[in-house]
């Protein structure tokens, strides 16, 4: 390895990595089992290929676009759950909390004739209040979160029934609201946002490089930074290009193209929460409490407040998930947020690489894990098996996706890394 040696302020010798040494190191880390989201992405690719081969419609633009709408609820709930899981807690009520918030918005829109810009905030506040109550019970009374949220899981089912007057379905007919998880951006906006995202990412990367260099700290080689930016650019632009193709079933009647509206919303929260977890002291404290509560407490971190806050974020994101579910169905019913939504959301987080024991996880896990679940669901329904077979095959496929991950990580254990 050829490396240049520089010196930091601390007077400690450091080695400035070159592109080659950086890639070498990365490869050694991967070989050593430090894989990040790599295995989940691998699993995603394998799954897509299987389904793509089995059904050619799987790779159609229409199906690609559908995937986003179908996964939105689980992805949003999972994003919030990541915070809860980071603390080693669980929120079993997230599914029905999303249902309750969805019902709130639908009732305000339909029964009370409110507009979306007043109804949605109320639903979000409902989510925040729910999270606060859950968090308070866990943090201040010290009841295990499994029990608190199991109780809430039951109670919210009841609240949903009561809100819906015993079980009627309520349709939403607000154009804007229904568009949220059904319609698409115009082609112009699609491209604009994609380009904005790439430029923004590049700016952040360069800025970071500059500020480290200024202090004489080691920076990633320029080549690597460019590679990262390029990678993102290719990914986003190709996806945008696909989504900006015509995909209407009957283009003569109506045109269907552009990035689904829900995509930039997912993107927004992904960036927001990634920023919060990675770049603010709040996020740092969440990891600390999850990694070692006692150490966090000794460091003066207000552990109880952090604990409450993650439930607030969890239920807030569940509210968004609920809103998306209602928008997609243009309707809410007593089962909104029920069935497998909760298990799928926790599953998304875990498959993405988040630990149930706390301290380990990233928001992107929710998106990747959510994508895995959505792809399985999407592909399986394309296959048109009957119910029994479908359940079995879904279970097996989930297992296959997880095994790819597990087998890849086994090396980690073998080399002593965690």
């Amino acid at each position, binding site marked *: 390895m050829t490396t240049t040696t520089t010196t930091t302020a601390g007077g400690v010798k450091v080695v400035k990595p070159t592109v080659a040494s950086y890639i070498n190191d990365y490869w050694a880390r991967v070989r050593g089992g430090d894989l990040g989201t790599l295995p989940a992405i691998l699993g995603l690719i394998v799954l897509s290929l299987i389904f793509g081969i089995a*059904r050619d*419609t799987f790779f*159609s633009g*229409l*199906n690609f676009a*559908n995937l986003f*709408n*179908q996964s939105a*609820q689980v992805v949003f709930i999972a994003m919030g759950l990541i915070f809860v899981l980071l603390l080693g807690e669980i929120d079993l009520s997230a599914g029905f909390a999303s249902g309750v918030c969805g019902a709130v918005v639908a009732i305000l829109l*339909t029964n009370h*004739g409110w507009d979306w810009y007043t109804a949605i905030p109320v639903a979000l506040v409902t989510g925040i209040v729910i999270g606060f109550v859950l968090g308070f019970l866990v943090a201040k009374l010290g009841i295990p979160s499994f029990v608190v949220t199991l109780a809430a899981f039951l109670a919210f*089912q009841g609240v949903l*029934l009561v809100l*819906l*007057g*015993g*079980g*009627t*379905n*309520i*349709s939403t*007919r607000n154009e804007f609201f*229904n568009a949220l998880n*059904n*319609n698409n951006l115009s082609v112009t906006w699609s491209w604009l946002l994609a380009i904005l995202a790439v430029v923004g990412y590049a700016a952040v990367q360069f800025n970071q490089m500059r500020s480290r260099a200024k202090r004489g700290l080691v920076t990633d080689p320029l080549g690597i930074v460019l590679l990262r930016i390029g990678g993102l650019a290719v990914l986003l632009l190709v996806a945008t290009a696909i989504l900006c193709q015509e995909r*209407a*079933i*009957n283009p003569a*009647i*109506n045109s*269907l193209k552009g990035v689904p509206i829900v995509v930039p919303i997912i993107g927004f929260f992904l960036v927001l929460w990634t920023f919060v977890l990675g770049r603010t002291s709040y996020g740092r404290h969440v990891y600390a409490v999850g990694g070692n509560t006692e150490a966090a407490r000794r460091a003066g971190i207000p552990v109880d407040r952090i604990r409450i806050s993650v439930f607030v974020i969890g239920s807030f994101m569940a509210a968004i998930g609920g809103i998306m*579910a209602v928008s*997609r*169905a*243009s*309707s809410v*019913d*007593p*089962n*909104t947020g*029920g*069935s497998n*939504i909760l298990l799928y959301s926790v599953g998304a987080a875990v498959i993405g690489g988040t630990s149930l024991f706390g301290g380990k996880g990233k928001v992107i896990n929710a998106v990747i894990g959510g994508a895995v679940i959505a792809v399985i*669901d*999407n592909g399986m*329904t*394309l296959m*048109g098996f*009957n*119910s*029994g077979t*479908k359940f079995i095959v879904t279970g097996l496929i989930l297992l296959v996706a997880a095994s790819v991950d597990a087998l890849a990580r086994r090396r980690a254990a073998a080399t002593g890394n965690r």
Partner: protein
Amino acid sequence: ACGGDDSGTPSGSGASGDNSAAGKVGIILPDTKSSQRWGTDDPKFLKAAFDAAGVQVEIQNAQGDKTQFQTIADGMISSGVSVLMIVNLDSGTGKAVLEKAKKAGIATIDYDRLTLSGGADYYVSFDNVKVGQLQGEGLVKCLEDKKYQKPVVAELNGSPTDNNATLFAQGYDSVLDPKYADGTFQKGPNQDVPDWDNAQAGTIFEQMLTSNKNIKGVLAANDGLGNAAISVLKKNKLNGQVPVTGQDATVQGLQNILAGDQCMTVYKAIKKEADAASELAIALAKKQKPTTATGTTKDPESGKDVPSVLLDPQSITKENVKDVIADGFVTKDAVCTADFAKACTEAGIS
């Protein structure tokens, strides 16, 4: 015998010696997810009927949980009901409950769903196969109106665990299968919706449409599933062009019909069903022999004839939405909101 003169309130102690002799009636409903009726309509109409007769009633819902179902039955039996009326979650648990009740000397009624081999004393229901037939015929009519050539029909069946769903499918398949066979229609994708879950129904239908873009008609087993399909159709701007069926005459379903997005729904006059059942129960509670159960239903498993009251379901399209309102099942206010005022007038609802 138990007609008009029971309508007074059971106030005075000796006012109606008749009533004070009447035992309590216990009713177990199945869930709140398969259809809104169990959470709203049935409890409402049943309660009203018993209150009117001054007979004590306890109505509980098992929330789709068969363990709960049995626990509720245990509780009702130990609190001393004299008549037990159930809508089973499945025939197995239904039967266990009915047998336990009979051992304790309690009269039993199957409400809406027949418990196979359950041996209930009476059965009150709509003809569920008939419901399916109406759905099938409705869809055929709508598709013929649209004059599609060999339209592809997708079927969104109810929950694989609900026996009624099986009966509905029997009904509509008996109409559709011949059409597939003779080539007038083309058989499209066909999937069950676990738990009648609307959200899953949405995804399932979206995938049906993705893999078979020619779908021209949707046999959805109830209004909730129908609405899920309609949402997806709307997203693809195909609503109105692809007829969708339903069941239960929910506000949502009726509105979808008025909007032209749904082809038909099946109205089961739940009030009539509830009234018929309570009439039986009230008589039994008073230790009288009911006279209203004139028909019989053959239990396909045990082969026994169960004395029955069987009501006719009614097919609802845009033309006769007003009948449902007139019947008092839904209110005009609920259906004819601002968005639908115009459609309501057009449909002759005043």
